[in-house]
């Protein structure tokens, strides 16, 4: 076995030109796959960072309260009791923050206006927001005072306001009354991708006044875990615990709460229904972009691998033809067909492994270089999709390992046919044909 692998390895290095051509192609495919995965992983990381800072915990307990079948508000009634049930559910819960959810309403500056989602925050207890936001101007702790607001850089630019300026927020209550709150811009934070373009934070008390909500209610309880990969499992446990505590629950659905609200308003029920969601659910179609990107990467790689397969066939069939006397000799001296087959598979596998690892390493270097260069993305639409104002790529070692393994296996599978052909070489091929 060891000697056969040695033969395979040395043959790869002996036929330099052939190996470079085919290995280069395999390395290129691996490079592309890893780079595309790095892009989608970076996007997912940005999405997670952005979502869990601005609108979501790893798991969320929100829901709707309907005073009439047609009017739904994103409210959790008497959140303290709900929080007590949730907190007792799992030892993996690190922190719970609460956010009040306003509407998608108009924010008006002295010169212009824009539509924004209004969120209420208790900055004194919301460590997540305080830790993650990068404040460019002003003081985030000023949000302790009612009548203040935290905006993001692009909003402030669009509204042509700075710290200390006053903007008006018009909010529609569940009774259909349009209220107005004048708030002072207390802090301007660095943009965090698409979500930060449409979100303004005001103190929870100010939001409650604007939308005529009670202080014992909130919009959502954002649950942060010590391991985000446990989100689905913990969400399931929380659902079970809340049902056991007598709460009505909505069926799980991978949509952001505002999309669910539109559906809920068409349903014929009143009162409170809680909704337990994960951060991916809240990202809705944006999370689908990541899946679509991964799907594209896999499909693209698959197509390229078909081209590689033809290269492998060409190379190995050529090798079988060139080495027919050698293979015949090996068969004559007692090498079994299975070992001949293995020898060619090992040759293809060795080449694929070396090439795929090289391609992955190159992609890793490119990702490191691009990340350290901190390439800025100025286009707002692109920022929205990328969830960041800089290009960020992330290499997930497990995905890279799987990519390399799949490409090696793919190559080895492609080598089966020529390897089988080699195993059919008759030992007599080693003999002279003159006699």
């Amino acid at each position: 076995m060891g000697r056969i692998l040695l033969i395979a390895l040395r043959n790869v290095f002996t036929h330099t030109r052939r190996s470079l051509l085919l290995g280069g192609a395999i390395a290129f495919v691996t490079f592309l796959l890893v780079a595309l995965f790095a892009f989608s992983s970076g996007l997912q990381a940005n999405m997670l960072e952005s979502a869990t800072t601005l609108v979501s915990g790893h798991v969320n307990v929100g829901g709707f309260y309907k005073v009439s079948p047609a009017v739904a508000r994103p409210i959790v009634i008497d959140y303290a009791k709900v929080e007590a049930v949730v907190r007792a559910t799992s030892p993996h819960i690190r922190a719970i923050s609460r956010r009040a959810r306003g509407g998608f309403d108009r924010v008006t500056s002295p010169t212009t206006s824009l539509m924004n989602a209004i969120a209420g925050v208790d900055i004194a207890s919301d460590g997540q927001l305080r830790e993650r936001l990068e404040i460019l101007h002003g003081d985030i702790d000023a949000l302790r005072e009612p009548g203040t607001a935290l905006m993001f850089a692009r909003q402030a630019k669009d509204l042509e306001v700075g710290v200390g300026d006053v903007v008006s927020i018009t909010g529609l209550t569940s009774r259909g009354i349009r209220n107005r709150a004048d708030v002072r811009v207390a802090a301007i934070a660095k943009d965090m991708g698409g979500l930060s373009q449409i979100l303004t934070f005001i103190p929870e008390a100010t939001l409650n006044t604007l939308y005529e909500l009670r202080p014992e209610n909130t919009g959502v309880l954002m649950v942060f875990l010590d391991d985000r990969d446990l989100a689905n499992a913990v969400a399931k446990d929380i659902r079970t615990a809340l049902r056991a505590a007598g709460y009505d629950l909505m069926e799980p659905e991978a949509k952001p709460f505002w999309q669910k609200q539109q559906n809920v308003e068409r349903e014929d029920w009143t009162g409170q229904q809680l909704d337990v969601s994960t951060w991916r659910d809240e990202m809705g179609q944006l999370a689908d972009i990541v899946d679509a990107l991964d799907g594209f990467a896999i499909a693209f790689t698959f197509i390229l691998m078909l081209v590689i397969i033809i290269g492998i066939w060409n190379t190995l069939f050529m090798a079988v033809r060139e080495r027919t006397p050698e293979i015949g000799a090996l068969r004559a001296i007692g090498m079994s067909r299975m070992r001949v087959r293995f020898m060619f598979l090992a040759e293809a596998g060795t080449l694929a492994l070396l090439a795929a690892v090289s391609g992955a390493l190159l992609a890793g270097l490119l990702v490191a270089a691009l990340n350290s260069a901190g390439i800025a993305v100025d286009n707002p639409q692109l920022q929205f999709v990328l969830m960041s104002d800089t290009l960020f790529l992330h290499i997930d070692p497990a995905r890279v390992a799987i990519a390399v393994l799949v490409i090696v296996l793919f190559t080895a599978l492609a080598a089966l046919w020529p390897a089988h052909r080699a195993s059919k070489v008759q030992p007599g091929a080693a003999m002279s044909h003159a006699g």
Partner: protein
Amino acid sequence: MSIVALVGVDKDYPLGKTTVHALRGVDLTIERGEFSVIAGPSGSGKTTLLNLIGCVDTATRGRVLVDGHDTAALSERARTKLRLDTLGFIFQSFNLIPVLDVYQNVEFPLLLKRDVGKVERKRRVFELVERVGLSGQLRQRPGELSGGQRQRVAIARALVTGPKLVLADEPTANLDSATGHAILELMREMNASNGTTFLFSTHDPQVMDVAQRVVRIADGRIAQPGGGVSHATPVAAPAPAPAG
């Protein structure tokens, strides 16, 4: 018991719509310890005969017995094992593994056998490499050796498993006269000292001169039915020539 016995062997090959009768009614016996040659012009059937004896091909009619085994009755796997355990091969074009060095090439058949330990493998390889005069070239690859040296490696490889019968397909055809002579002397010495049976195919008179017995073949038929002795030379044991 003979090491090889062919009884009424025919070998036909289809060639387009016709059939080529490569061997016709061959009866041949090779005794253990012989140093024999199958001689004949190109296309006479030498290689076909060697292929049948080497379990590389099967007869169309008749029986081929190698070391008591009817080769037609053996499975592909059993024939492979018979080749590994009983036969050694030396080829006209040497057919060494180009990416392995001398030591590794000679050792290779022992690795295929699996039942020979590392220490024993090393002992046998060193002994044979020394006997073929290549101790100084152990780490050289075939591409770095002369034709004669390559054929010496092939001889060592053929003998390393201790085969009962070594088949050599025109072993001197690609060598110059002096080197060819030295190689023949080496094989004759191996034959004398180990009792290993050697069977060559050749149309080289030099090879026929050193053979103990020459089996002449023409148009697929043995010239002396029954494989009678046509030419004999005493089997001596001269020291291997250093040429190569």
